[in-house]
């Protein structure tokens, strides 16, 4: 390579040595040790978990701060932008497979294994010998009713309201996106603010709904296979809403500082796509878990 090429023209940007990977390692170490200690009833375990989360937050803040700093000082070439996009693409792919697995398990349980217990399909003998009084239907409390009887969350209650909230947040985000593309910063900031607020409302509603389901409806993680798939699917979705809202809040802060231009706004597009993804997962849940 010619020596006349300056650093910013170099397609490969090599960052300075960074302390953040070590901080990340310490954070994960504290979290895992804390979890292991608290599961075994050791007193300071929960304290270690708190320390782990604080370190994790510090690491995210610092590391992303450095990356933003590098970007804003013009150190990044098109090649770096492209590698961020490739990284996001594969991260998104892993998220797709993550939720595809859970939806797949829901399908398998509902349409295949519960049918066996009810006496159809190639393992129907299970029904004859072990679960002969069991009638297969969905939802089911399971052949032994281990978690006790439970009632379902009313589809027209919080789930429908939360669907409306998430769809509205998708609209406000799309409005913000067009604002960014048309160089209308006010529209970008207003749209993002509304999206984050709607996301927070969604999470609060979901927490209340869980409390109601656990208490009044007796729908718990132990309510047979229905309860466990219900909480795994909706719980991981809720966790993703929190992550998405944090990402959008960071993007909102950066928008207020004027970091994004019509051409340089990868962070916005990555967070926006992620939010649309979380929104679509919820629609899948609304149709496949609450409706069908």
């Amino acid at each position, binding site marked *: 390579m010619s020596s006349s090429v300056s650093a910013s023209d170099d397609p490969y940007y090599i960052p300075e040595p960074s302390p953040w990977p070590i901080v990340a390692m310490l954070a994960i170490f504290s979290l895992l040790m804390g979890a292991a200690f608290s599961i075994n009833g050791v007193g300071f375990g929960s304290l270690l978990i708190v320390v782990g989360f604080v370190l994790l937050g510090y690491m995210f803040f610092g590391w992303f701060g450095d990356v933003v700093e590098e970007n804003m000082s013009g150190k990044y070439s098109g090649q770096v932008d492209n590698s961020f996009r490739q990284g996001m693409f594969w991260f998104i792919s892993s998220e797709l497979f993550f939720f595809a697995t859970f939806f797949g398990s829901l399908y398998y349980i509902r349409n295949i294994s519960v049918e066996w217990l009810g006496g159809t399909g190639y393992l129907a003998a299970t029904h004859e010998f072990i679960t002969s009084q069991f009638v297969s239907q969905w939802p089911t*409390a399971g052949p*032994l009713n281990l978690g006790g009887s439970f009632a379902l969350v009313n589809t027209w209650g919080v789930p429908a309201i939360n669907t409306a909230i998430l769809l509205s947040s998708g609209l406000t985000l799309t409005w913000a996106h067009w604002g960014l*593309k048309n160089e209308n910063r006010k529209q970008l900031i207003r749209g993002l603010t509304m999206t984050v607020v709607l996301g927070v409302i969604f999470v609060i509603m979901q927490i209340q709904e869980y409390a109601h389901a656990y208490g009044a409806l007796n729908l718990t993680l132990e309510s047979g296979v229905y309860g466990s798939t219900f909480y795994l699917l909706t719980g991981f979705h809720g966790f993703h809403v929190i992550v998405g809202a944090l990402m959008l809040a960071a993007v909102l802060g950066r928008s207020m500082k004027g970091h994004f231009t019509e051409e340089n706004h990868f962070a916005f597009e990555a967070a926006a796509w992620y939010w649309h993804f979380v929104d679509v997962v919820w629609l899948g849940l609304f149709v496949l878990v609450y409706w069908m």
Partner: protein
Amino acid sequence: MGFMKFPVLLVLGLIVLSLASGMFLLAKDDGKGNRLVTSLTFRIILSLILFAMLIFGAIFNVIEPNTLTPSAVPAVK
């Protein structure tokens, strides 16, 4: 949900397709042009159509949520 299951699942499939095309455009278009924001706009419009289908389907009794009482049998002693 009956036969209305199929149009609902079809629209859900179209939503996933528009989201997936957004995923490729996020990686391919390098922030230039409006193809990503257009695909995400399609995504949200289709989602609103799906939600409206469910609401109107329920109002006109064409589709109803699954409200079966969870089945169980007494524990075998």
